[in-house]
């Protein structure tokens, strides 16, 4: 069944294309031959158990980690071959929402948002900065927290501010690392609808890493199951979860057990 909330302008231009990606840390082989495509306008949820290498995968996409082997193309650029300067340019088009929000805790919310803006775009007027920050805070519905410190925010608010900080540079691709982990069901639902809002408003394509099947189901067109360093199955939510594979079944059962 098609998810009606999702933005419908799917076309077939890939914004992320991964071929045969390998990554290991010393003796530990984390990713063992990943193939992955994200089309423009599409949202894909990546599921997998803890330690399966989901965070590693998206960190490779933005060049925070280097792949051992494989072709990684993001917005037409080969991340594995690109120069440092080009990589920085590419990063401006990618929003990365961190698992632990990663707000700069020595700065206020306003400064957190203004920082990537002022560091990357020279000679902005105070007015332009203010309005950009307000727009991003508005998008996540937390305008009133503008002058708070990150330590004064709840987990869900921190997640939102983290998302707002990535929106300030108007990204084309959003990478969400466990946007709902550690949140209660109601706040999780709010984050889920925020992800959809962002997609509509900013026209993004997204990779959403999660173990939360509700989040995966509501926010994504497709599900990709990461097991033992490979994508075991990729497809629509219902297709994936009718599979008889035991690991997929146990994943499903844990989330939706009656």
């Amino acid at each position, binding site marked *: 069944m098609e998810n009606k909330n999702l933005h419908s302008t799917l076309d077939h231009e890939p914004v992320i294309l991964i071929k045969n990606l390998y990554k290991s840390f*010393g003796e530990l082989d984390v990713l063992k031959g990943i193939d992955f495509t994200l089309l423009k306008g599409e949202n894909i949820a990546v599921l997998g158990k803890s330690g399966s290498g989901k965070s590693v995968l998206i960190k490779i996409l933005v060049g*925070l980690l280097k792949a051992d082997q494989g072709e990684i193309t993001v917005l037409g650029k080969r991340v594995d071959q690109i120069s440092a300067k080009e990589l920085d340019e590419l990063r401006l088009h990618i929003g990365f929402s*961190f*698992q632990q929000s*990663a707000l*700069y*805790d020595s700065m206020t919310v306003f400064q957190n948002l203004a920082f990537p803006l002022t*560091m990357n775009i020279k000679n902005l007027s105070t007015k332009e900065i203010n309005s950009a920050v307000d727009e991003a805070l508005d998008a996540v519905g937390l305008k009133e927290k503008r002058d708070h410190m990150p330590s004064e925010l709840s987990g869900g608010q921190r997640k939102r501010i983290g998302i707002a900080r990535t929106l300030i540079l108007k990204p084309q691709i959003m990478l969400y690392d466990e946007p709902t982990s550690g949140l209660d069901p109601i706040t999780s639902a709010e984050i889920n609808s925020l992800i959809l809002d962002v997609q509509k408003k900013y026209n993004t394509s997204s990779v959403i890493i999660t173990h939360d099947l509700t989040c995966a189901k509501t926010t994504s067109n497709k599900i990709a199951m990461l097991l033992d360093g490979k994508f075991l199955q990729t497809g629509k939510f219902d297709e994936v979860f009718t599979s008889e594979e035991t690991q997929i079944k146990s994943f499903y059962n844990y989330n939706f057990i009656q």
Partner: protein
Amino acid sequence: MISKKSHGFIFSKNIDSFLEGIYNAYQFIIRFFKEVFQPPFHIREVINQCYEVGLKSLALISLTGFIVGIVFTKQSRPSLEDFGAASWLPSLIGIAIVKALGPLVTALICAGKVGSSIGAELGSMKVTEQIEAMEVSAINPFKYLIVTRVMATTITIPILALYCSFVGLFGSFLNVHAAESTSLIHFYQEAFKTITFLDIFSSIAKSIVFGFTIGLVGCYKGFHATKGTFGVGKAANEAVVLAMFLVFLEEIIIVQLANWIRFF
């Protein structure tokens, strides 16, 4: 960083990781010198950090410098009096404080206060992914966080050391004044009589080296903190221990060098 695929160690596990540490530190220093001369220069952040360094250690340096001055004078007086040379006290103290105690006391205090706080701050930024967040926003964290902090300690600590010497001499003056009722002018004249330009120069040079070391060690330990809150404490602690050790080591080397220079 060096990564090893096999279990085989070249020497033993400890020696290997020690050598790896030295290699990484060397890379870190090279990278610092590469980046420090390339724009963008975050001047405002450097000034901010200078302010932080000064603010954090000023009170403690004032107090310690003052006490060291008084105590050192008090303790030296009997031995000099035995030789009937109590009038040499100011010049003895002058040399001791300006050449050795001022820079060393300042460096040790800053290693404790500033080094540990840099280690803890960067360590916690590292383990909470804030450094990676900077990187994905196309901001070079090495430049923004490390170059600025190392520059700040390198600039500020020599100034603090001079200040510390001054406060120390003032403490010493109070003691001398109480015992021998020497005037302030006379005391400073005496104190600086035997101090040469080379002494002051090498004292400042030494403080620059200390400042650089303290900043660099704090940043290195913080930047390479391993995951978890445990890693933050460890980074802060190791920053202090290593910085103090290196400060003593450098003190010995620089004193030797200054002696050699004097002979030529």
